[in-house]
């Protein structure tokens, strides 16, 4: 399906190879149905002050969340904890129903494969083509080469880059790189999608389309959390809930949040 056709349906790739990659982990989740639980989590880099302090919240399985807050509030650090690039300095984090703070390192790859990540700086592998970058999560998961072509090509078409499949990141514009990064993050139909400013480098129309992509994925059951400054984006997903970070702590100073984050005890 060409990109111009819009995102009225999820890519069929999600029902094919990618859809079969990960088992739904409902049985692993806590009784409250939370896919993520933070309890008194703090994060400190080195010996400096805490970047994140006393974070306590839960993300519901299948929920759609926006993470907002001023620059330097700790949004990226919080996302790093979510996509297992960092362990907290203190507190408890449960992901897919399991404590990942004390989890042996050897078990982390299996959890990471259940998470899709859109990095703020894209983090595409510079010497790989757009096609190979998008195929990376499937290859990591052990999908056979013969089963890669259809889902990857379709996903590239979905983000409007079918004709740029062989292009390397250096030859792509910022917006194109961002779309490759998004395609890579969602190709495996992750259970949790973590996106850091995923529409920061694209025009408003493209931002709207990409948001539809996340929306489609969410409707298929993926929990989505997007860090963004884009106020227009926030209003586009009516069912979305918001987390607001300020100076490393969850904050709701104005009381204007439409859907305050649900706490575990609630």
């Amino acid at each position, binding site marked *: 399906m060409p990109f111009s056709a819009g995102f009225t349906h999820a890519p069929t790739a999600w029902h094919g190879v990618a859809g079969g990659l990960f088992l739904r982990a409902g049985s692993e989740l806590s009784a409250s149905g939370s896919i993520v639980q933070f309890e008194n989590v703090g994060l400190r880099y080195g010996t400096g002050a805490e970047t994140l302090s006393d974070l306590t919240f839960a993300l519901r399985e299948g929920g759609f969340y926006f993470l907002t807050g001023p620059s330097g509030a700790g949004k990226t650090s919080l996302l790093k904890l979510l*996509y*297992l*690039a*960092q*362990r907290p300095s203190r507190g408890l984090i449960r992901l897919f129903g399991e404590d990942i703070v004390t989890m042996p*390192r*050897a*078990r*982390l*790859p*299996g*959890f*990471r*494969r*259940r998470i899709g*990540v859109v990095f703020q700086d894209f*983090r595409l*592998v*510079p*010497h*790989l083509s757009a096609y*190979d970058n998008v*195929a*990376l*999560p499937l*290859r*990591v*998961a*052990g999908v*056979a*080469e013969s089963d890669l072509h259809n889902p990857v090509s379709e996903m590239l078409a979905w983000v409007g880059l079918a004709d740029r499949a062989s292009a390397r990141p250096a030859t792509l514009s910022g917006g194109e790189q961002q779309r490759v990064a998004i395609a890579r993050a969602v190709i495996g139909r992750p259970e949790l999608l973590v996106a850091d400013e995923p529409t920061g480098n694209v025009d408003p129309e493209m931002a709207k389309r990409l948001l539809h992509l996340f929306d489609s994925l969410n409707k298929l059951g993926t929990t989505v959390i997007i860090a963004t400054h884009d106020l227009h984006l926030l209003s586009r997903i009516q069912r979305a809930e918001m987390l607001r970070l300020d100076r490393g702590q969850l904050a709701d100073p104005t009381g204007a949040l439409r859907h305050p984050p649900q706490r575990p005890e609630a």
Partner: protein
Amino acid sequence: MRGNSRRFGAAERVLLPEGRMAGPMPWVIAIMMFLTVLAAAAGLGLGGAAARLGDQIGGRVTVQVVEANPTARAAQAEAAAAAARRLPGVGAVRIVPEREIYALLEPWIGAGGLESDVPVPALVDVDLPSGDRAQLDRLRAAVVAAAPSARVDENAQWLAPLARLIGALRWLAVGLVLLMVGATAATVVLAARAALDTHRETIEILHLMGATDVQVARLFQRRIALDALFGGLVGFIVAGVVLILLGRQAAALGSDLLGSAALAPTAWGVLVALPVFGVALAMLVARITILRALGRML
């Protein structure tokens, strides 16, 4: 994180950007392999020479009959040989023909009229397979009783220092091979660490996608194996050419000692196995180095 054996499949060829032959590692390994093959060839050749010398030392005795009268000399040589043959436990007994003796002396004394000018001792070669001291004493007593002008010389007396020198050189060659193996392993460690630093960004991305340490290590192993294979083959081929040329020159000298150091087919087999061993060693060292380094990452 080490238990997963998933492969990246064809992607292994593209996930690391620089191709084989990048950097100095293949050439360093080629030099190491060249020196290793030469040292190993020296060790194997000297080993063969030592074994042949050992055979001689273990059982060869020369009886010299020092008698000015040629007739008496010949008679005593026959008597000494007959006495030796009668003893139990004695192997082959052979009177060395005079022409052989003259041929041996010719380079030093010159040819022509030798027999009339210089009285040359008669020689009898006796093999004592057991090589034990009591047997030698019995032989000496029997020979001297039969031929009063006879003198029994153990080859071991003059070959032993040479054998010790060959043994020492052989161990030196073994030591050099071990040093080369250690240096090659150290080279691979440095190359693996450099490659990890160069590709740290890619490794982090792969980790965040859920790649295991073994998956990542396999990428580097493959690349390092290719470098080691290239370097090993280049080093082996050059060393092989050098050995063949040296062998031809040694053969042209006609020296028994150098001839005994010639490489047997089994020795060539060992040398051919060295590049294969080098590749296996490089892969193992690379794997250990990379897994250790990755283990320090989250």
